[in-house]
């Protein structure tokens, strides 16, 4: 919303005509449009090289591959909105996945209890790190770097001698391996489209009833049609392979829910405020430290959920769980898709978009069986590009009088 208005502040000033409504759609979500174009470009490049890339089977695999990173990114977005960083999310996801596996396999806990315990561990870690960060005014970078090391150690400790643990409880493995039938898939599509339409229509009606400008519904209609088209296409593609995966619904559910929290609730507003100007937020009576702790709790909780999904997908946890480049990709994703590293700007939606970009690149390179040397360099390049784009956007804002 803020980005939308930013780009078009001058244009929207006078009046709302059809042309302006259209311009608003195009310019408003400029970063989203840019990312979607980037996605199309990536798809075209890989499709030309390897025609399996856009096959229903590969696209379904892609969706499953991005579940973990997307879920972790949802929490990372909150931290980025504060202008902070959480380097521990990868390690926390590994540790929490392992906690669940150990409780389920070694201690025979009920699957749901094990999952709940793993999530609780994640939340507690976030509470600890957030409290240390806000109480002692230690840079979040350092607190979470310490966390990264410590939780990796904890992962090894939890796994013990075995080093890896296979999960066989179908309630856990099902999370990432259940596919719904075609009918159920279409029901999901209908519910999502109808729900989105209802939200847009109700919002529009309230605004018009309150006599607040914007009486031109064209922008809303375009957005509705765009979303409906994407949902229908996605379900059609997924149905032509194994069906809509439960994992995708979990990811979407968290993206939508956490986007609602950040954009529509008082708490979310305070997150933006603290990220934009912590001193102003404090003077406005916002309990800044509480917001900070809550955000770090969200980040670690989402990391735990991502770790659970990763364990479910692999049917196992091992010493590498949550390691490698997972952490940096989970941070790079939202930044690529337009969430600022400097705080105060972005949306949860960028977690999904960014995960799609990063997932597509890595999936495509796997299909082409490129060596890991190339993959690492390309991934590094994409990360650098994302940060540069963010920095350039920030400079442009500053030269145009925004900070």
């Amino acid at each position, binding site marked *: *919303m*803020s980005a939308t*208005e*930013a780009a078009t*502040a*001058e244009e*929207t*000033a*006078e009046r709302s005509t059809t042309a302006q409504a259209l311009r608003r759609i195009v310019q408003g979500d400029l970063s989203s449009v840019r990312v979607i174009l980037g996605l199309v470009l990536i798809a075209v490049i890989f499709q030309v090289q390897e025609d399996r890339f856009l096959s229903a089977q590969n696209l379904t695999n892609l969706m499953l591959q991005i579940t973990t990173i997307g879920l972790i990114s949802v929490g990372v977005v909150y931290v980025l909105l504060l202008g902070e960083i959480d380097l521990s999310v990868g390690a926390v996801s590994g540790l929490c996945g392992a906690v669940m596996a150990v409780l389920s396999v070694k201690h025979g806990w009920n699957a749901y209890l094990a999952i709940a315990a793993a999530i609780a561990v994640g939340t507690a870690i976030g509470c600890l790190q957030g409290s240390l960060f806000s109480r002692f005014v230690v840079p979040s970078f350092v607190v979470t770097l310490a966390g990264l090391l410590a939780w990796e150690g904890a992962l090894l400790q939890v796994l013990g001698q075995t080093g890896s643990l296979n999960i066989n409880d179908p309630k856990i493995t099902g999370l990432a391996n259940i596919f719904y039938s075609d009918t159920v898939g279409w029901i999901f599509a209908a519910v999502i489209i109808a729900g989105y339409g209802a939200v847009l229509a109700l919002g529009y009606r*309230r*605004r018009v009833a*309150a*006599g*607040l400008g914007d009486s031109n519904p064209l922008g809303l209609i375009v957005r509705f049609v765009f979303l409906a088209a994407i949902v229908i296409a996605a379900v059609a593609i997924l149905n032509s392979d194994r069906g809509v995966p439960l994992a995708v619904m979990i990811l979407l559910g968290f993206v939508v829910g956490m986007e*609602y*929290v950040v954009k*529509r*609730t*008082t*708490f979310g*507003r305070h997150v*933006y*405020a603290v*990220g*934009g*100007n912590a*001193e*102003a*937020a404090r*003077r*406005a*009576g*916002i309990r800044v430290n509480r917001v900070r702790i809550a955000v770090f709790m969200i980040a670690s909780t989402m990391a735990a959920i991502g770790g659970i999904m990763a364990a479910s997908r692999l049917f196992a946890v091992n010493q590498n769980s949550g390691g490698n480049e997972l952490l940096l990709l989970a941070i790079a994703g939202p930044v690529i898709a337009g969430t600022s590293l400097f*705080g*105060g*700007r972005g949306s949860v939606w960028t977690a999904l978009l960014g995960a799609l970009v990063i997932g597509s690149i890595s999936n495509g390179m796997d299909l082409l069986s490129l060596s890991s040397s190339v993959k690492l360099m390309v991934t590094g390049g994409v990360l650098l590009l994302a940060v540069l784009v963010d920095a350039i956007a920030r400079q442009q*804002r500053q030269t*145009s*009088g*925004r*900070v």
Partner: protein
Amino acid sequence: MEAGTPLLELEGVSKRFGPVQALDRVDFAVSAGEVVGLVGDNGAGKSTLVKAIAGIHSADEGTIRFEGREVSISRPQDATELGIATVYQDLALCDNLDVVSNLFLGREEISPGTGRVSRQLDEVRMEHETGDLLSNLAVTIPSLRSEVGTLSGGQRQQVAVARSLLGEPRVVLLDEPTAALGVPQTKQVLQLIRRLRERELGVVVISHNLVDVFAVADRVFVLRLGRAAGEFKADETTEEHVVSAITGVGDGRNQKEQPDQPAPKEGESA
């Protein structure tokens, strides 16, 4: 403009920071529907006086009366509860949020019904109230949904002032509201200050700029080295008189030799 009891009255207020006597037995008052210009050189105690009223630093000595009643202001919340709003020079706005969000920051309206559970924002109502308030004050902002960072300095100042009014204050303290503003923007802000006066608020304007002070103030209160150094009716005095009170020279009178002077009421005599 009503005479009678001042809305806010300070009597013999002193404040000391270590060896520095920042305020020395200052008497100060502002009435409803009155704009008081608070002027003085750097270090004269203007900010300290405002901070004492706003509850940032409580005064060491002296009494503060609000609507004739003696009150103690030891925390910012005390001042807010009494109905004293302060707009600081740095404005304390979130540049990444739009006008509506900034106005309601920290006191957001919550949607009725199910939205209450998640503390969902009632954007429509907030935007509506923002529109009403700003048009009441004749503040023109291109769009209520513009990010505050995109606004001009004058617009930002006006947003900050409008925001202070949401709590329905009786007294508004403005710290250098026209500093760093261009001519047309300064004009807008001064116009806004006049509208606060029309709303029967007591307004205290701290400023270095005597032209702006004379353009808007009913009364000019001069501080020098922590002491009251003169009080003038704006339409009965000249800038020269005020300047000499600020600097303590001129008019053949050295104000340094007047300890603890109880501020001549009628400025011309200075």
